[in-house]
């Protein structure tokens, strides 16, 4: 067989294939995806709201000579919120794995490797992290502006350096994707290790 494998093409599953399938799963099971995305969006909104408030205060302080800042303990709350969000995502993705036991078994029958199953779940996590992070950041900017605006004036967002805003946007999304992917690693690993025989016999 070794020779034959060499002569034929092997099995393959590209990131593009995984993305296509991952999008289908998110689209068709929007409810579960929406819960995951909301969970991550809220945590990221909390974080970016705080960072935006802080940014607006700093800009205002520079302009007016006043000295405003965000209380440090609030960052601890954000930290806790992020951890809660990660646990929530792990939970939701574990349920997604159970729901798809049979489908995972079937895919293994069709030639999927363990790594392909991991990739499929990770791609879903990344898509969810991307959307959740972007939505969360927008929410964060709005609430940050609301919390700082009464003191600094709402035009403070126009005075804040655009590059800083962009950096926060990129940072929020990167963090969101990272957390979502990290939270999905264990469920994805569980899914990949499934014995196809047991997965196919599984009744939900």
């Amino acid at each position, binding site marked *: 067989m070794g020779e034959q*494998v060499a002569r*034929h093409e092997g099995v*393959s599953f590209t990131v593009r294939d995984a993305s296509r399938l991952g999008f289908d799963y998110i*689209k*068709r099971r929007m409810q579960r995806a929406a819960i995951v995305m909301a969970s991550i969006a809220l945590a990221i909104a909390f974080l970016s709201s705080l960072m935006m408030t802080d940014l607006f205060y700093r800009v205002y302080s520079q302009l007016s000579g006043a000295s405003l800042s965000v209380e440090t303990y609030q960052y601890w709350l954000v930290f806790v919120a992020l951890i809660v969000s990660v646990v929530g995502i792990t939970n939701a993705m574990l349920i997604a794995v159970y729901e798809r036991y049979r489908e995972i078994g079937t895919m293994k029958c069709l030639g999927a490797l363990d790594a392909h199953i991991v990739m499929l779940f990770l791609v879903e996590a990344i898509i969810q992290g991307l959307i959740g992070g972007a939505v969360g950041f927008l929410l964060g900017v709005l609430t940050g502006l609301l919390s700082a605006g009464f003191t600094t004036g709402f035009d403070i967002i126009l005075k804040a350096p655009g590059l800083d805003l962009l950096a926060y946007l990129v940072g929020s999304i990167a963090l969101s994707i990272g957390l979502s992917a990290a939270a999905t690693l264990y469920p994805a690993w569980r899914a990949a290790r499934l014995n196809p*025989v047991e997965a196919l016999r599984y009744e939900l």
Partner: protein
Amino acid sequence: MSFDSIIELEDLARHYDMGGDTVKALDGVDLKIGRGEYVSIVGPSGSGKTTLFNLVGGLDRPTRGRVYIDGIDISKLDAYELAWLRCRRIGYIFQTFNLIQVLNALENVALPTVFAGVPRDEGLKKAEKLLQSVGLGERLHHRPTELSAGQQQRVAIARALANDPAIILADEPTGNLDLNTGTEIIDLLHGLNKKGGLTLIAATHDLKMIKASDRIVWMRDGRIEKIERG
């Protein structure tokens, strides 16, 4: 004698450890299956049919004995080579169809070609042809929930054929179907075997299916009880 065997089982056994007791799901099966043959595996539930299937399909590892496919001992294959075998050489058909619910008929049939590394357009074109050949040319974009049981099994058959396998393993393919639909599925499989030269191995209780086959292997308690000519 020019018996060209595609599958050879040698003293094949699979024992499970169930809370200290050893369950001998399969206990010493010897069998040769010829290229293009249609073999029905018959026996009461718990007789080892499904275990046999899982071993032949490389889904499970035997406790003892050997499975040869095209003369190659599949216990010597690594995970990648086994995946290749499942992808290219074997098509699976299940009692419960096992279609991917989020994909439509066309995408379901094309899925094995994705794993085989076939370009997407080519895979979809092939899937369309296969769906037409099983009489579902008008249902390409329907999802499994929008199809009847018989139609879902046709999609599953088309999917099993997607990478031109040499062997079709069908585990109770008519088990969830009514009589008429079951007969259509049997005719379809029989045609693939006779016209397409596919080796077809089917575990079944269905008398019509048994009658259509070349050989009938009767199993009981993990062993072959008798083999009859169909």
